[in-house]
């Protein structure tokens, strides 16, 4: 077995392993709930959990196929293969948008379910906070400057390095870099829209009383965690993709060897995957805690 295939399989194993962590945590946390609350929570999260399983499974299978094909292509020395470009198209053109649509569906479904996160408040007495929710308040100031600065810097570097490529054989690397650059910018845009939508989404305040107040505090903490977490994760992903685009252009210039590029890409991708899975696990746990807390408040009232 070639080293590159072993490397691919290890990477796949790590990603599959971390994808399964939230599932194990959720199952364990569910067992600790009281029976009456457990049934209610179970009803609410079951469809979403099925989607999570499906998404993880699909991504896992696609990733395995890609890894095997990619390793074979690299072994065969077929660097100009269309596979290098198509792997980017498949993963960033299909998998990311698919995940994004899935998250949106998940959010919408959760919100529309009674007792989870109602968009329209119920009851005759309604309370709202008079504090303005804004992206500016929920994110540190420097991060808002970093976005446009990074985009401008990356674009300028990209254009400069692309127009200065002289070798006729560097076409595929330039195409790869172009695709990475595109993915990086799309990731930045998704992040900006997602964060804005989450920050400004209507938030009904729960019932008054100590349990209600605890729930309100927990809801706010959860919202901030998701907003900041997704923002920084997407930002990191965008930086990685833009960085990879830059590295590929350097490969096209003959400054960096393709081997180094492959290792940087593989380990960078796995690192971000690991961080993403960690964030996903924490977000799932917090979401689960929030749902059981809400179920408790609803059961008590």
């Amino acid at each position, binding site marked *: 077995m070639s080293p590159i295939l072993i490397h691919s399989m290890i990477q796949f194993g790590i990603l599959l392993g971390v994808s399964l962590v939230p599932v194990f945590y959720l199952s364990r946390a569910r067992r600790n709930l009281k029976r009456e609350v457990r049934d209610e929570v179970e009803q609410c999260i079951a469809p979403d959990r099925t989607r999570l399983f499906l998404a993880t499974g699909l991504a896992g299978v696609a990733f395995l196929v890609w890894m095997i094909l990619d390793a074979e292509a690299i072994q065969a020395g077929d660097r100009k293969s269309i596979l290098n470009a198509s792997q980017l198209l498949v993963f960033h053109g299909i998998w990311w948008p698919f995940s994004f649509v899935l998250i949106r569906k998940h959010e919408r479904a959760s919100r529309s379910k009674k007792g989870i996160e109602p968009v329209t*408040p119920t009851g005759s*007495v*309604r309370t709202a*906070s*008079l504090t*303005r929710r*804004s992206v500016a308040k929920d994110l540190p100031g420097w991060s808002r400057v970093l976005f446009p600065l990074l985009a401008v810097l990356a674009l300028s570097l990209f254009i400069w390095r692309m127009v200065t490529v002289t070798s006729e054989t560097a076409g595929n690397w330039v195409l790869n870099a172009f695709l990475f650059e595109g993915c990086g910018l799309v990731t930045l845009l998704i992040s900006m829209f997602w964060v804005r939508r989450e920050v400004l989404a*209507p938030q009904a305040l729960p019932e008054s009383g100590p349990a209600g107040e605890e729930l309100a505090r927990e809801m706010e903490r959860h919202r901030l965690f998701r907003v900041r977490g997704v923002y920084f994760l997407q930002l990191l992903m965008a930086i990685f993709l833009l960085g990879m685009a830059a590295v590929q252009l350097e490969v096209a210039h003959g400054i960096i060897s393709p081997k180094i590029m492959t290792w940087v890409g593989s380990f960078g991708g796995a690192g971000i995957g690991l961080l993403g899975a960690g964030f996903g696990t924490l977000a799932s746990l917090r979401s689960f805690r929030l749902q059981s807390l809400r179920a408790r408040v609803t059961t008590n009232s």
Partner: protein
Amino acid sequence: MLTVDLESSIPLEEQIRRGIRETIARGELGPGDSLPSVRQLAGDLGIHFNTVARAYRKLRDEGLLQVGRGKGVTVATDGPSGEGESTRGRIQAKLREILTEARLSGLPFPEVKKLLTKEIDRWAKEIQA
């Protein structure tokens, strides 16, 4: 926090207006502080955004809020002055109205005085806190 009661006989617009006035008076919202947008507040309360917009407009006309294009709704930095003769006259007229209502309801004046003192103390405590 702003609370409205959908079943109250007081119009929603008026409840929002009173709620915001009270929040500003208590010092929970200071000059220059941003308020939620019309749609955001309407969404949070589950009411029509025109109702919130009307309440905001009234407060702007009273000089309590500023509505700037692109800046959103903020608490006015130069709110209505509390020292003028007209302000004193307005408050006196409102007190007369309260006393008339108390008299018509059969509530003795000492009781009204007690209520007023209690309310002033409560406000003072809340402002200090």
